[in-house]
């Protein structure tokens, strides 16, 4: 599947990031980031903490505003509209509509603890996309089946293990049938023995041709699943390429130093 995507001609990338700049006060977190993610491909973003990889992910669905640059998904500008030579921020209602096409999976799951697993999955399709309740429930149950948690539909999130909660969170993101899935360190809050079950779900999604951007420290996962590995440091993309190149024959000293520490 992955080789197929690579050889196919891709006229426009699914996700197109150009010249992103973002500061928190005096701290420049992103200093001109460019990124192209072809449809159906898996991009893994690596880098030391503070390198801006989480911020990059959060700007892609406009959880963070931009200082300069732009993000486009499937040809649509995210969070802004162009008028003359300026980009004006969209109204919140518009941004919310755009986000229904962008799935986001958080490090801490952020499941709604007062709703059952099924209610967590049904909430957004009904509230944001106005799907009929019955259809949303049926789709949700099918998704739970897919992540291996069909028997947990009536449970509350706190009754589940961390790995199960993250699988529910992934199913919740999938319930909107997004064009892109963004993962912000999806296994970092998990006990080591629970990482595998979450990565298995990610691998299954990758095989089925879902466009994914994954920020992670799991080098093994990057090597096995990624079409492109992006290494970030100091708010810029230091290098990117197929895992065999970036992970095994890094061209930059900073990449080599990082890999030496995590491998």
């Amino acid at each position, binding site marked *: 599947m992955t080789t197929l995507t690579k050889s196919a001609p891709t006229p426009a990338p699914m996700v197109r990031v150009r010249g992103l700049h973002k500061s928190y006060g005096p701290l420049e977190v992103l200093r001109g980031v460019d990124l192209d993610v072809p449809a159906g491909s898996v991009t893994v973003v690596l880098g030391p903490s503070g390198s801006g990889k989480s911020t990059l992910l959060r700007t892609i*669905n406009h*959880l963070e505003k931009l200082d300069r640059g732009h993000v486009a998904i499937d040809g649509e500008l995210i969070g802004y509209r162009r008028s003359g030579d300026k980009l004006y921020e969209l109204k*919140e*209602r518009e941004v*919310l*509509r*755009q*986000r*229904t096409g*962008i799935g*986001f999976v*958080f490090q*801490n799951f*952020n*499941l*709604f*603890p*007062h*709703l*059952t697993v099924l209610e967590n999955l049904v*909430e*957004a399709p009904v*509230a*944001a*996309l106005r799907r009929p309740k019955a259809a949303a429930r049926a789709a949700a149950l099918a998704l739970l089946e897919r992540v291996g948690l069909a028997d947990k539909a009536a449970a*509350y*999130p*706190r*009754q589940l293990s961390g790995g199960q909660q993250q699988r529910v969170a992934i199913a*919740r*993101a999938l319930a*909107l049938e997004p064009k892109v899935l963004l993962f912000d360190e999806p296994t970092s809050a998990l006990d080591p023995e629970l990482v595998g079950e979450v990565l298995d779900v990610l691998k299954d999604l990758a095989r089925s041709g879902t466009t994914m951007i994954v920020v992670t420290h799991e080098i093994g996962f990057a090597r096995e699943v990624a079409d492109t590995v992006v290494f970030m440091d100091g708010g810029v993309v230091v290098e990117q390429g197929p895992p065999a190149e970036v992970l095994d024959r890094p061209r930059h000293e900073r990449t080599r130093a990082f890999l030496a520490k995590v491998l």
Partner: protein
Amino acid sequence: MTVTTEAAAPPTRPGPGAADPDLDLAELDGLRTVPARHPLRWAAGITALVLLVQFGHGLATNPGWDWPTFRLYFTADSILRAIGITLQLTFYGTVLGFTLGAVVAAMRLSRSTILRAIAWGYVWVFRSIPLIVQLVFWFNLSYLYKRLGFGIPFGPTFGEFEVVGVLSALGAAVLGLGLHQAAFAAEIIRGGILAVDGGQREAAAALGIPRWRQAWRIVLPQAMRGILPAAANEVVSLLKGTSVVYVMAIGELFYQAQVIYGRTGRVVPLLMVATVWYVLLTTLLSVVQYYVERHFARGAERTPPPTPWQRLRAAVPALPARLPGGRG
């Protein structure tokens, strides 16, 4: 580190458990343990109990409490009517207080600097003025404003009414209690909302859930867990706080008790009538609070705590599984 012999233990380690040369560790195997005894703890407990029993005995036998008079007035019509007024004041005060409080809390949390400042000012003013001062103020509102009207601010007026006719003493009391309560309710609600993990709003926003639904469906139900204990405190305190409106000569419970002992001279038994009613009503509110809190605890714990009835049933198996008409 490897343990070789007993002698290899750290030789000179001062502090608790300094080595006892006579202690033969091999002899300790299989001995029974005895928990430490606390004779002073028992003595203190028994002393407190004796004092309590003595107080109870005094309540029952001291003729000064005048229980026959207490019985005479406890369910007297005038007292029951007064309770009705106390309950009305509490109910309307709570509804007005928490509705307005929710609006003020939303304003204080809004992104508009102007709304935030106004809400802050409201809380500042109404928290600063003593309730009793405020009540007397509202009672004398018609002195300040003879007529009130609806219309465009600084522009023409569409309709007018006399303040004296519309704002009865009871209305003024409800207004005073409600406005006062709103300042405190606003801070309690704001506190509850701030206590909800920011990731919840962020997750709802990332899922594209509309803003009002983020608040109603995701944030507020979770905030309720933090709001409820403090809010129940406020309602109880308002119930008792209604006794302050006796300054406006409104016939609520405390005022009525005063009227009766002013006539009969039996102060203590009538204070007891009011006291026992306040305790009963507060107890009722506490029970309601328990069930409301239980409702909003959904998902907060792995297994929900049993209701008092379920606990009683566990102790007395002969009881029916559900209360008639109750939730069991």
